[in-house]
């Protein structure tokens, strides 16, 4: 479903601030794969997701979604394939529009938009059903401005908006990090159920290692622009957080040594 080949991205190339953020990343996700991504700050996790979504052009390498090479498509064209939820709860919705208007915009993801009425009664009924699955009572507040919702409600709505049209790829970048533990748990639970329900191919960045092990069927650890560890479903079941930490220290030391040796 998603194939990334030798993706390379360097910020400020040729200057003293040169920062390689992706070093020849190769990654393949089969349809329905739910991979969690962990890694230290600045490992390149967000850069990878931005490269997939097209908000950041790659220096080299290629990205294929469902067999289509998307390298030359800009972000709003790729949106046809991709649903996204951002870390900032206010990033995924339009605050001065109502819940139903936001959902009407999301409903047309990747389709032509015409001069038809945005919020029809048929669509409203659909929005109500979809919102009811969040169990937050938002289905009774269709005409409320999204700017009035709490961070957790907004993030749950963002998740719904990104997924109810069943994108080929779902990208989640620390989408629970800005929420309090209770809300974060709720959004995580909603994420699991919606991904399961639609069988979405998903990449989820998180800083919570326990969550990274518990959620999804694959785990990817990044460091310094590289994938340094990949676990499949079986390996994930038998791995613990201390295991991960130990593995990280070991591989990190090794890759750093390699680079010092090579340079």
């Amino acid at each position, binding site marked *: 479903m998603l194939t990334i080949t030798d993706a390379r991205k360097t910020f400020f190339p040729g200057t003293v601030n040169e920062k390689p953020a992706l070093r020849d990343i190769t990654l393949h996700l089969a349809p329905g794969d739910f991979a969690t991504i962990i*890694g*230290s*700050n600045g490992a390149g996790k967000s850069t990878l997701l931005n490269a997939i*979504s097209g*908000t950041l052009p790659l220096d080299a390498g290629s990205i294929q979604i469902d067999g289509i090479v998307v390298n030359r498509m800009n*972000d*709003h*064209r790729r*949106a*046809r394939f*991709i649903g*996204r939820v*951002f870390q900032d*709860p*206010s*990033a*995924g*919705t*339009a*605050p001065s*529009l109502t819940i139903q*208007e*936001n959902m*009407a*915009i*999301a409903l*047309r*993801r*990747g*389709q032509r*938009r*015409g*001069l*038809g*009425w*945005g*919020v029809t009664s048929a669509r409203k009924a659909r929005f109500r059903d979809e919102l009811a699955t969040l169990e937050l009572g938002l289905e009774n507040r269709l005409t409320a*401005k999204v700017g*009035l919702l*709490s*961070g*957790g409600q907004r993030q749950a709505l963002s998740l719904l*908006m*990104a997924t109810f049209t069943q994108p080929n790829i779902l990208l989640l970048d620390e989408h*629970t*990090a*800005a*929420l309090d*533990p209770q*809300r*974060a748990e709720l959004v995580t639970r909603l994420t699991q159920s919606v991904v399961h329900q639609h069988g979405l191919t998903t990449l989820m960045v998180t*800083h*919570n*290692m*326990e969550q990274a092990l518990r959620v999804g069927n694959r785990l990817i*650890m990044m*460091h310094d622009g590289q994938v340094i560890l990949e676990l499949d479903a079986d390996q994930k079941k038998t791995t613990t*957080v201390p295991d*991960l930490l130990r593995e*990280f220290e070991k591989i990190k030391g090794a890759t750093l040594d390699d680079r010092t040796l090579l340079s």
Partner: protein
Amino acid sequence: MIAALELGLIYAVMALGVYLTFRILNFPDLTVDGSFTTGAAVAAMLITNGVPPLLATGAGFVGGMLAGLVTGLLHTKGKINGLLAGILTMIALYSINLKIMGGTANLALTMQGTLFTPLADAGILDTGLSLVILFVGAFLIKLVIDWFLHTDVGLAAQATGDNEQMVRSFGVSTDTSKILLLMLSNGLVALCGALIAQYQGAADISMGVGLILVGLASVIIGNALVGTGRGIFITSLSVIVGAVLYRLIIFLALDLNFDPNDMKLISAVIVVIALLLPRLIRRRTPRALPAEPTRSAVIAGGTQ
């Protein structure tokens, strides 16, 4: 007095255009000063050459849309700062408008029939009935704008002014949205220019100077009356009311023997007051804002 109200209702068309860019798109578009005159010049020139007034007025609208297209392209594809893009188009339009008017700075329409001639002939102008007719006209345009903003395209355009990252992630080209709104906005402004030229019986090369302030004043005054956070229907209606109120204020200022040369200064002062007043009132009655949850401590362990 009635003349002031009539003017206000005609200028409401321009204010609705400014509302689209300033409020919906969050884009202070200075093209307006030029495109207003473009609409007036195109309509006046065509009417002088025997084109039916209605057609000439429509052509004025199209002229304004082209001006908006230029500003939109400069800003989106050319990546030029929005204010600068508007200024560039506005200044270029000065020469273009002169060309449209055949090199003269003033084009009188006294000999020709205009859209307002039938009203004048029937003795309706300057009566309550003319106000009703003009209000219905402005209201119909407002309804078309309301409708447009509620379509799939319109919702995407609204969201573009609200959260670009979000609309792009749902497959909307924000460039297209911006260009569309700028075209529609300047089309309305030029339409208003075409109407004013016919109402006053002349197109003048400097008739658009400082007009953006009139538009902003109308939008800000109107919105201040109903408060922010209202639906589109009320908000766009308030813009019409704002445009009329603005004319009344100017009318009263003239009545109080202010120098007509001071009108631009008065306009600027009105805008400043309209901008500051709601903020000052709000400061005296602080409202509790819902607290945003902060980045939490869930981040257990981490590998940093």
